């Protein structure tokens, strides 16, 4: 299958859009009609053909435009990409992981030719053909982590593992759900999760950390997380919150269908071989309410999840003020019929809306 890359924007005029293909494969995050934090982790070893879980690093129609948006963010604020000095080796590990995975999974888009440490990398969608020496920073225009993550969708946190703990010591973060790498860099797993309500008391972070510390080479894992964003804005950063925060108040019953987006993060975890670090790619997928409502099961379920979500979570995720308006809209798509278990759209088997 060849991917048609969209020409679209994630700011100002917001021309971002999902094709039917992208809607069908959207990683809807709710496997039942309610939601609470849990240690929702599973192996990351492929998934149904065409799904976002199939490849190690999913490439979709938004690739080229997302990379342009990232370059714009970095031009304005280079602090979004940082790597503490001891993390360079992990950066090379990550560069290798992404180049090898993408060239194997998408041979028509990416090529990697290796002759010892002499590497040639071809990225056709972005028009890059670059020869360099592996492990020699002087042959790359940026550090290895920055070089490769300017060519990979999603944010990346690179965690050093020491003293039975993970430390966020490097990252490329431009499509984040309101957290700052510049502020969080150097923190440990419990510290950067400090603002999250409830999960600490539920023991979720203790168990999650144990799991992550034991992730081994060749055995990656994944989980989903989600939030809400008004307008398809990728860069919902604290740095720019004084500019985009006000957009939340522009939501009206007339525009909510296309303005309000469910924002889902496909988070994966890979052990990096040479550095023993862990990389945490956080891939963001956006889908407007009106596009989600084309799947009857998702319509029914989203209404119930948002309606019953504990207040602390709605507050933390930043949509408590807009929740009543969301529910007014979503309730139109909930006819009270039961939903099938699991996250898949089940278009053939789920009945159409009967109201």
């Amino acid at each position: 299958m060849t991917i048609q890359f969209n020409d679209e924007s994630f700011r100002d005029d917001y021309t971002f859009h999902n094709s039917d293909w992208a809607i069908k494969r959207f990683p809807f995050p709710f496997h039942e009609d309610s939601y609470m934090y849990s240690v929702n982790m599973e192996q990351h070893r492929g998934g149904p053909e065409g799904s976002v879980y199939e490849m190690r690093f999913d490439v979709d129609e938004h690739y080229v435009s997302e990379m342009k948006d990232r370059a714009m963010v970095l031009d304005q604020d280079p602090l979004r990409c940082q790597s503490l000095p001891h993390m360079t080796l992990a950066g090379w590990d990550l560069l290798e992981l992404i180049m090898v995975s993408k060239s194997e999974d998408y041979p028509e888009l990416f090529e990697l030719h290796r002759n010892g440490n002499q590497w040639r990398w071809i990225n056709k969608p972005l028009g890059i053909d670059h020869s360099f020496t592996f492990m020699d920073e002087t042959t790359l225009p940026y550090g290895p982590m920055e070089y490769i993550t300017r060519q990979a969708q999603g944010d990346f946190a690179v965690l050093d593992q020491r003293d039975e703990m993970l430390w966020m010591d490097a990252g490329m973060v431009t499509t984040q759900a309101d957290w700052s790498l510049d502020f969080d860099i150097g923190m440990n797993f419990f510290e950067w999760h400090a603002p999250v309500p409830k999960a600490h008391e539920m023991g979720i972070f203790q168990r999650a950390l144990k799991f992550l510390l034991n992730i081994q080479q060749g055995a990656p894992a994944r989980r989903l997380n989600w939030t809400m964003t008004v307008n398809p804005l990728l860069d919902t950063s604290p740095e720019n919150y004084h500019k985009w925060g006000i957009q939340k108040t522009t939501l009206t019953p007339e525009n909510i269908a296309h303005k309000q987006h469910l924002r889902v993060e496909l988070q994966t975890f890979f052990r990096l071989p040479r550095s023993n670090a862990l990389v945490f790619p956080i891939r963001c997928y956006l889908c407007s309410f009106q596009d989600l409502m084309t799947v009857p099961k998702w319509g029914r379920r989203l209404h119930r999840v948002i309606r019953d979500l504990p207040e602390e979570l709605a507050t933390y995720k930043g949509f408590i003020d807009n929740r009543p308006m969301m529910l007014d809209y979503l309730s139109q798509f909930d006819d009270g019929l039961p939903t099938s278990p699991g996250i898949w759209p089940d278009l053939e088997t789920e009945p159409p809306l009967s109201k």
Partner: protein
Amino acid sequence: MSGAEKIQAKVTEITPLNELVTRFRFERIDGGQLPTFSGGAHTVVEMQDGGITRLNPYSLMSDPFDQSSYTISVRRDDEGRGGSLFMHRQVKLGDEMTISYPVNLFSLDLRARKHLFLAGGIGITPFLAQIKQLELLHGHWELHYACRNHALASYADQLTDRHPNETHLYYDDQNQQIDLENLLSGQPLGTHVYVCGPKGMIDWVRNTAAAEGWPEDCVHYEEFLAPQPGKPFEVRLAASDKVVHVGENESLLEAIEREGVDAPYLCRGGACGQCETVVLDHDGNFVHRDHWLTDEEKASGKKIMPCVSRFEGKSLVLDR
């Protein structure tokens, strides 16, 4: 499935180094490349020893960035339950064996301004890989290596040849001993010390470092415990509804696996915590041998690490 990913390998070189230590080289059966790893990592080698499957961890000592082969060095332990004896006596050139992906429980702290390595005997092996890694990254390191005598000092000559300024050797038979207090107190701020060797040496280094005011986080150690033989005992596995007899020469974990129950593990040496198992009921005494559980947990009688620990008494019921 428990444990790390598996690799089908064949033995392509067996090199006796001295009376006690033999080196083994593994390459992939399919001729492909092995994963790179970080210095300090080990692989778990599977041995089909009669009716028993043994899985023993050995530090990888080859260049971590060399993907053509892995090497390990095995010291013969005549008193142990037979893993090392199997490697020495049964394994032949060309044998096919299953080894695990590299797992690192003894990695370098890459922030360190200096790495101080203290090795005792066969404890030299993880440092060989770490030294190769640091040489490539232009790291600052120093090695102090204590052995019984020159003949048993595996790789000592090679190390002094290649790194004359960084390598310091100490032989028991010449009454040489590491001057630990002075060595530790003279290190610049930001030094990390790593020790691998017999338990006595690890305790000595940890205690001396603590007395010299070293922060705990700057002291790293690795000691793989080989499971020790012990009195046979019975265990009831509540979740799988089985009663298992643990023989004198097998570990609790091996006995559980023999009965077809999939139990988690990683290091099989009491270090990683993966095999932690809840004790539902017991009447008798635990023989805790792991480095994982805290003293309180050990005393509580509520947890056991079946890869190295045993039980003596009337009855033991595990949540497995």
